[in-house]
């Protein structure tokens, strides 16, 4: 929505000083968020094996990461798990938020409380109880069990974010769509979901981040084939975090940024 409304935003946002302050504050916060990232990238070039002492510049760790199959495999697993988790969590969370918002279900309070429980449940409790469940059900550990665990603790975040946006949504929108002859499903998919997009994006980002870095629940629900990056990384602290891990993180950051830049470029080409 560019053009007139963005002009109105500029007016609406008030005097230039306010906008300047806002912009600067965002810059400060982003700098705060990136400070450790810069440090960790710097140390990926550190010749010393022990990442806390600086001993000279080298590309060696990047070379080593490239050949380290278990680590790359773990990174691949983490990525696959995080993506699938995000998709399932978004579907479950968005649908759940919409249904709970639109309909007066009996026991809605209980349902919503249950949804919030994984947010408060300590990870060790979730991990062990899920493992006992899977073991009793005779289900072998692997990608499926890990993803189940990850979705369980991340979909509430999606649901809460989408619900918050629904709270401010004009009910007239859906009514108008229905009046114009849409089925409830069409109204949902074609009218409501686009309005919810920012909240869905927010929820998806949260779910992905939660899944990517999770350790304890994953420990109890994974097997060797589905080992994730945090599982491999955590034990490495014992002999000193290998700068290989810094290199891997740096590679991932560059890859993400490049991916985004590339897709933005493609979008611009398509226009």
């Amino acid at each position, binding site marked *: 929505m560019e053009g007139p409304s963005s002009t109105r935003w500029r007016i609406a946002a008030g005097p230039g000083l306010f906008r300047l302050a806002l912009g600067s504050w965002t810059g400060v916060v982003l700098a705060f968020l990136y400070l450790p990232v810069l440090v960790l990238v710097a140390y990926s070039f550190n010749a010393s094996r*022990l990442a*806390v*002492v600086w001993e000279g510049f080298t590309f060696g760790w990047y070379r080593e990461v490239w050949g*380290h199959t*278990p680590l790359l495999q773990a990174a691949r697993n983490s*990525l*696959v*798990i995080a*993506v*699938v988790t995000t*998709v399932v969590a978004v579907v479950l969370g968005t649908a759940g938020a919409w249904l709970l918002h639109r309909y007066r279900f009996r026991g809605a309070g209980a349902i919503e409380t249950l949804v919030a429980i994984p947010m408060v449940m300590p990870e060790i409790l979730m991990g*062990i109880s899920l*493992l*006992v469940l*899977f*073991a009793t059900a005779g289900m*072998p*550990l*692997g*990608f*499926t069990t890990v*993803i189940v665990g990850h979705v369980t603790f991340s979909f509430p975040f999606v649901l809460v974010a989408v619900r918050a946006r629904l709270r401010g949504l004009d009910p007239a929108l859906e009514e108008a769509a229905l009046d114009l002859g849409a089925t409830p499903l069409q109204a949902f998919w074609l009218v409501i979901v686009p309005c919810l997009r920012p909240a869905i994006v927010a929820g998806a980002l949260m779910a992905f981040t939660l899944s990517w870095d999770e350790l304890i629940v994953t*420990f*109890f629900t*994974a*097997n*060797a*084939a589905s*080992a994730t990056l945090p*599982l*491999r990384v*955590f*034990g*490495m*602290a*014992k*002999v*000193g*975090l290998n700068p290989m891990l810094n290199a891997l993180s740096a590679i991932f950051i560059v890859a993400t940024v490049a*991916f985004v830049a590339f*897709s933005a470029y*493609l979008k611009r080409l398509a226009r």
Partner: protein
Amino acid sequence: MNTPTLSRCLLGAVLALSAPAAVRAAGVLNLFGWSEYVPQTVIDAFTKETGIKVNFETYSSNEELISKLVAGGGRYDLVQPSDYAAEVMIRQKLLAPLDATKLGHRKNLLPEFQKRPHDPEDKYTVPYMSGTVGIVVNTEKVKTAVKSYREVFQPAFKNRIVVLNDNREIVTWALYTLGLPINKIPKENLAKVRPIIAEWVKLVKVFDSDSPKTALLNGDVDLGVVWSGEAAILWNQHKKFQYTIPAEGAHQYIDVLAIPTGAKNQAEAHQFINFILRPEVSKMISAAFPYTNPNGAARKLLTAAELANPASYPKGGKIETFRDIGKTAADIDRLVTDLKSAK
């Protein structure tokens, strides 16, 4: 998100998910061990020689190992508990007896690591690596001699000390200073060490069991009571970090290899254990991780520098292993938690 990439990711995920569960093929070994304790080079060498594929899962504490085994049942063929954890597992009948005929290289082990209290007949376990818990000092910052727990926990060192984040260890050190037994801990003894630990907790800057060397390397602390492995790495980094066994007594741990009951690939597991016991393989492990090697034949192959490391091969001192203490573990946890959270 770019749709083609997303669908490719999903496809990959679906394929991964629909892959059949691990089949009990001959030529597979499911190893569950400490992270960073079995070098990848050793695993690769084993696979190259025998053709057995190794599925390596990791944990970072004995209790994680026990929890996962107890909650999920054994799908592992080989595990790596510490001595007291092995003792618990033997008594809970979680470990299978070993076939001594398949472990010909066992004779390479030094006698002081055999027939230990956790497994008096060496029926279930084979020592892997060993170590102690002792005092490490940054001799550039600390000029006085520090040879006992009492000398570590002095007001002069307030806020400059790192210790393990292990409640049982802390209680053990306090018990040692009073000359009390460390493996039979009645409630009166806990009450006796309480004031000592209360004082100690106030002097400690960092509690860290995963990487206490970090604080020492960073210069945020000057001395501490840590694993010998950590101290060995420190010493390799800079000789200013000196390690000593405390005069009152120290905890020695022996990490072992064992086979869980119901393991499906016991033959492969035995092969792996025997492989590890070879001196040249054991030497590879020592080269990667400077712990105390219980393999006498391997020690002969070590370099002078490795043998000179005071943390890897400390001289003398009164050392004991942990035994399982049952419900006292809960009392210890409560005691130290209480003292730590008091302001």
